[in-house]
């Protein structure tokens, strides 16, 4: 993602002595295309329409950006940083659908491309760790190598993993605990 709008602020108040790297802008079309490809591959062509055309991003670190739809009107003179629900995330060079977007797809079509995980695996995953094969209760097709992680206890979507043939684990791509770890 081109860092074309980095802004660094240093606040002078005693309680605000913090540097922050931050950028935002319109999402490059190639990244939107990558997201659309991902959704097509895992969930089907019919869900491409759930990805809005006018997407923006906000990054608080070089490798963590949230992607959201540009609000419709009345806010042109304001700096909009975020619009919920978020649509996708850019993390460690991956563009992945947001948890709300996947939840919406699952509501319409049922759960797809997912692993259902035991309590111990969930706990490790929410702290940013990978998931061991022993922690997987169930794998739900299609088997494309990338899966959403579902809590076996309450059915909540927790993030994404990718199977690593080399390490023989499900590598954490992002988990919902990331927001506390990275954004505070």
């Amino acid at each position, binding site marked *: 993602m081109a860092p074309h709008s980095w802004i660094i602020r240093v606040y002078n108040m005693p309680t605000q002595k913090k540097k922050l790297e931050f950028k935002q802008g319109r999402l490059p079309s190639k990244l939107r295309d990558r997201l659309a490809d991902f959704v097509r591959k895992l969930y089907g062509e019919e869900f491409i329409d759930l990805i809005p055309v006018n997407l923006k991003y906000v990054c608080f670190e070089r490798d963590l950006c949230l992607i959201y739809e540009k609000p419709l009107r009345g*806010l042109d003179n304001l700096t*909009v940083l975020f619009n919920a629900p978020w649509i996708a995330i850019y993390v460690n060079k991956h563009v992945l659908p947001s948890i709300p977007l996947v939840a919406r797809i699952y509501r319409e079509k049922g759960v797809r491309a997912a692993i259902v995980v035991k309590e111990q695996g969930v706990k490790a995953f929410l702290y940013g760790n990978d998931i061991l094969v022993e922690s997987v209760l169930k794998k739900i097709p299609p088997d494309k190598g990338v899966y959403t992680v579902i809590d076996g206890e309450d059915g909540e979507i927790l993030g994404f993993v990718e199977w690593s043939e080399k390490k023989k684990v499900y590598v954490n791509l992002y988990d919902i605990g990331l*927001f506390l770890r990275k954004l505070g």
Partner: protein
Amino acid sequence: MNIDIASVYRDIYTTPTQEAVELALKYGYLPYMVQRYIDMLGLNNTLKLLEAFEKRVKPVVRTNTLLIQPRELKKRLEKLGFQLEEIPWSRESYWVVSQPESPSIGATHEYLKGYYYVHRDATSLIPVYLALHEYSGDVLDACAAPGGKATFTAQLLHDKGVVYANDLVLYRLKAVIGHIARMKLNNIIVTWSDARKLRDKLKKRFYRVLLDAPCSGEGRISVDPGRKTRTSLLDLAIMVKREIELLYSLADLVEKNGLLVYITCSIAPEENEYVVNKVLEARSDLEVVEPPLKLFNYAKGLTEYRSLKFKDELEHCIRIWPHIHGLFGYTICLLRKRN
């Protein structure tokens, strides 16, 4: 609205008595603050207030009812070793009475999954209940960070309105966005602006505006004792000027018959009744109204303080006193835009 800091300073200036100086030394406060407490409450209640500030308030867990029912959350947290107590006037919230050594209340898996928000104290729930009583529609939270009120408002509105959460401090907005994503809320827009400039930047008008103004935070001394000495009288005058400017300018964003909720985590009349009175003197289109909901017995706003006389309607403001209510010191005034 042009506010002269020197005139504010003259209005709020006081020379502490020997009694105030001695108490200030004993409890570690700036003398003018203790003089203020004596002037408002008398000596006995000042002592009770100073003692109350020495006690820790209980943090509050507010259930994200969009994801889990309060009783189910309570059961899960109690299983982890937390002891929770119901808050009689908030069906989705609990006081955290005791905690295990690990995990902390802000590090459980239930927290990571967005099942709840942790408030430092229950007072910040009150303005949201008051603002949303018999209301659905969009809400502006003009100084929204760290996001407790904005996320609660979004949760209560759900699909019946959008929350516009604005703040000036970027790194605090980062945390707001983190909470929104974690809690899976789908009706918040986050903007970055000086709230005083919103009236020029926003085309939209609102029937509900929350202004939790940046203030001395004097009501939060129990969790941040540094506030006993952080704000000199001159600093206070500068804050008061900003608070007047904020309230005055945000009134332009309120639709006719809409409510502007002015909130501070301060018990200083200078930051509350004085501010609201100044704005009422400058604008005839606002009136202070009674709270639409009685969650518990609130204390009334002040209509006079030292030599200052405020409009009678200021008594409709709500004061939360640490020594009476066992909560943070807090002041809330509901201003209705006249038709």
